[in-house]
């Protein structure tokens, strides 16, 4: 008589709910499309290096040349100077967003990064003013950022406080600490070697961009190639399954806050060096830009899904938007409105692309 074990009726894997090719394309590259579209718009309708009348776009394109009457005739937005400047500006938010992404991937959120940027920035400036030397100026802020993350991580994992609340405390607390520390006055007197971090070049590439690129690479490797990274995704995807699989959930959840704090401090060093002063209100609102970059980049706020390249695209999108609007002379009062609309639009497009999941 037959035994059940071997041939069993075909059990089919039910295919995922219908997602058309177009939708899948949108889901994958939606952010990138918006980014490219924005760049195109700012290139064409933004200012050109010479008067637009002298510089008929159609003539230039058909003539395959951007030189007319011996003058370079190109869009300001797409110029090398502007692009490098843009990416240099993005690198601070971009680095902060990388740490933020790790926290969000585990299903948490870090609202404290903006205040950490502010606080560690003025501490760095004060160390410079008091001639503490380059190394302490770099290490002390990083240590402060990391410690703040450690405290948050312990509060979240051992104290069972939601990360939203714990980091809201950091947001308020460090903002106040910054004002107390500086007496609400900017701190100046930064030394040349420290300022290099914000203003220097490696070859033709500004140092902040080099640091940002290294951070992207490191985060990408961490997420894709280490057990820690795999654990981060697993915790965000299903925390109890991760715990039961022997993942060190509490340790990893604490570490992502530490990294987020370190990222914020690193961003603060670049920002302070570039501004050539410690501004008591710098970093304010950075948490929102960082979270926006992460979310625009396709990371799920409930955790478990998201990529480094997505977050890069998200940060660039915000940077391009700010930069382009300034170039187009849009009133600073209108800029946040446009920014808000584009942020919501990008996420909406992502959702449409994802389709309705059952």
């Amino acid at each position, binding site marked *: 008589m037959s*035994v*059940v074990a071997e041939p069993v009726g075909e*059990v*089919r894997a039910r*295919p995922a709910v219908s997602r058309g090719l177009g939708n899948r394309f949108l889901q994958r590259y939606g952010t990138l499309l918006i980014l490219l579209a924005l760049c195109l718009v700012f290139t064409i309708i933004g200012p050109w290096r010479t008067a637009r009348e002298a510089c008929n776009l159609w003539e230039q394109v058909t003539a395959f040349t951007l030189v007319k009457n011996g003058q370079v005739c190109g869009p300001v937005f797409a110029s090398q100077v502007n692009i490098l400047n843009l990416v240099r500006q993005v690198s601070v938010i971009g680095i902060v967003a990388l740490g933020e992404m790790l926290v969000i991937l585990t299903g948490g959120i870090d609202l404290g990064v903006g205040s950490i940027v502010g606080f560690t920035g003025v501490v760095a400036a004060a160390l410079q003013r008091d001639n503490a030397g380059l190394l302490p100026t770099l290490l002390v802020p990083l240590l402060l950022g990391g410690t703040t993350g450690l405290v948050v991580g312990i509060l979240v994992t051992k104290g069972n406080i939601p990360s939203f609340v714990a980091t809201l405390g950091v947001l308020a607390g460090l903002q106040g600490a910054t004002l107390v520390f500086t007496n609400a006055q900017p701190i100046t007197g930064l030394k040349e070697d420290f300022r290099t971090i914000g203003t220097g070049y490696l070859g033709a590439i500004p140092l902040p961009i080099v640091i940002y690129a290294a951070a992207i690479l490191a985060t990408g490797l961490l997420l894709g190639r280490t057990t820690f990274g795999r654990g981060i995704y697993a915790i965000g995807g299903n925390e109890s*399954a991760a715990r*039961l699989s022997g993942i060190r959930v509490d340790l990893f959840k604490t570490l992502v806050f530490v990294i987020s704090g370190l990222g914020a401090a690193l961003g603060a060093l670049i920002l302070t060096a570039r501004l050539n002063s410690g501004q008591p209100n710098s970093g304010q609102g950075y948490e929102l830009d960082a979270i926006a970059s992460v979310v625009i980049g396709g990371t799920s706020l409930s955790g478990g899904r998201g990529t480094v390249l997505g977050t890069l695209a998200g940060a660039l999108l915000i940077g391009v938007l700010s930069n382009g609007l300034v170039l187009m002379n849009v009133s600073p009062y209108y800029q946040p409105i446009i920014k808000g609309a584009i942020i919501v639009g990008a996420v909406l497009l992502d959702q449409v692309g994802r389709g309705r999941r059952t």
Partner: protein
Amino acid sequence: MHTDARRPLVEMRGMSKAFPGVQALQSVDLDLHAGEVHAVVGENGAGKSTLMKILAGVNHADAGSVRLQSRPIQNANPRQALERGVTMIHQELNLAPNLSVAENVFLGRAPTRGGLIDWSRLYADAEALAARLGIELDVRARVEDLSVARQQTVEIAKALSLDARVIIMDEPTSALTERETEALFDIIARLKGQGVAIAYISHRLDEIFRVADRVTVLRDGRLVGTLPIGEATPPRLIGMMVGRELTTLFPKEAVEIGQPVLEVRHLRRTGVLDDISFVLRHREILGLAGLVGAGRTELVRGLFGADPLNAGEILIQGRPVHIRSPRDAISLGLGFVTEDRKLQGLVLGMTVRENETLASLAQISRAGLLDTNRETTLAARLVEQLGVRTPSLEQEVANLSGGNQQKVVIAKWLATQPRILILDEPTRGIDVGAKAEVHALMSRLAHDGVSILMISSELPEILGMSDRILVMRQGRVTGEFTREQASQEAIMACAA
């Protein structure tokens, strides 16, 4: 309007439905008569849920017609179906946990007086409905304080309050104890008496023989046949479901049982576990029987370091051990296939590969760096070994069928090369074919030297697979049987 008494209440004709890549239904007919319990059975993916969802307005058919009392209808959405008296009670209940029973029953339709809720009438109406179901139900209790079985009766009461003429039940007993199941069958009998047509989806054949009047079998989206229950036998139904006859459901091999591998002494967790002692031997399959709530899951979670224990001693291969976390348990050679694969077993958004290696990352990494080649090799070997049906290793497990998801969970633990494997309801909610494969695998693992501790609420499974059986009741071990001594009656006598 006069309707012919012999004419079915619901007539579905030529129902077809395609999802991308799969024809879920192909020209299926189904009749439901008033006062009839009609079981719909088939393996996972056979199309029974799709068919029922079309009736309930959740899915839309590509072709075919539905008549309700001879009138053609097309339920555009569940709300429209409800208005026509067709209700589906899903496996996942749809109740507002923080509201009272009565509020849930009349959600959005509470009787009002002067714009405010008329509480006394609300409670009175809810009590009247409970009486119609023949049950005692505290209509003022909050739903979250009720057992799953009670919550289900709230759903049924809600359906009745909407004058449901057709009630579709999708695996209604999967979370119920035996006693609660009996109570549900009483309710079903009462509904029948009131002329309600019931479509009953279940994997449990014994239940179908208990409650159904007729049974329809689907396979691969096609209708295999509809039989009066009197003409059906379990082998015949299984044969229709899988396309051939199955004779041996539990392929337990006799193995030579060795020395104790796991010894548990006087384990205690206040209010949950009371002085539990037992031994698990090399190559043994030890069945853990009992009613839901007897403390079986709590016991194995405690053993695995997932829940705290207050007192007791655990020895592995004769050595006392302290298990403070699942991580400790894994390093001591324990594996734990949890009861609920979606909530605790799988990371649904991750791929087959990532899920399979999740508990053995140390094995495929050096200094925290993953060796992706070794990972892929390991994952591919497990897919092959367990016969996981997946288009690729990179498929998200959310897209696999229940049986294949369960195989992925088991694969995750096999990857850790456990000496002791804990299986909590290993075949719950998976179809007959996959179930047989899991049983064959258990037998093979025991043969290869793994000791297995299996919790199951299905007595045939306990009796069929275990070398020895422990019975628990209210946090205590109340009985122990060898394979030869055990019988359904003896186990139930200890469990209830």
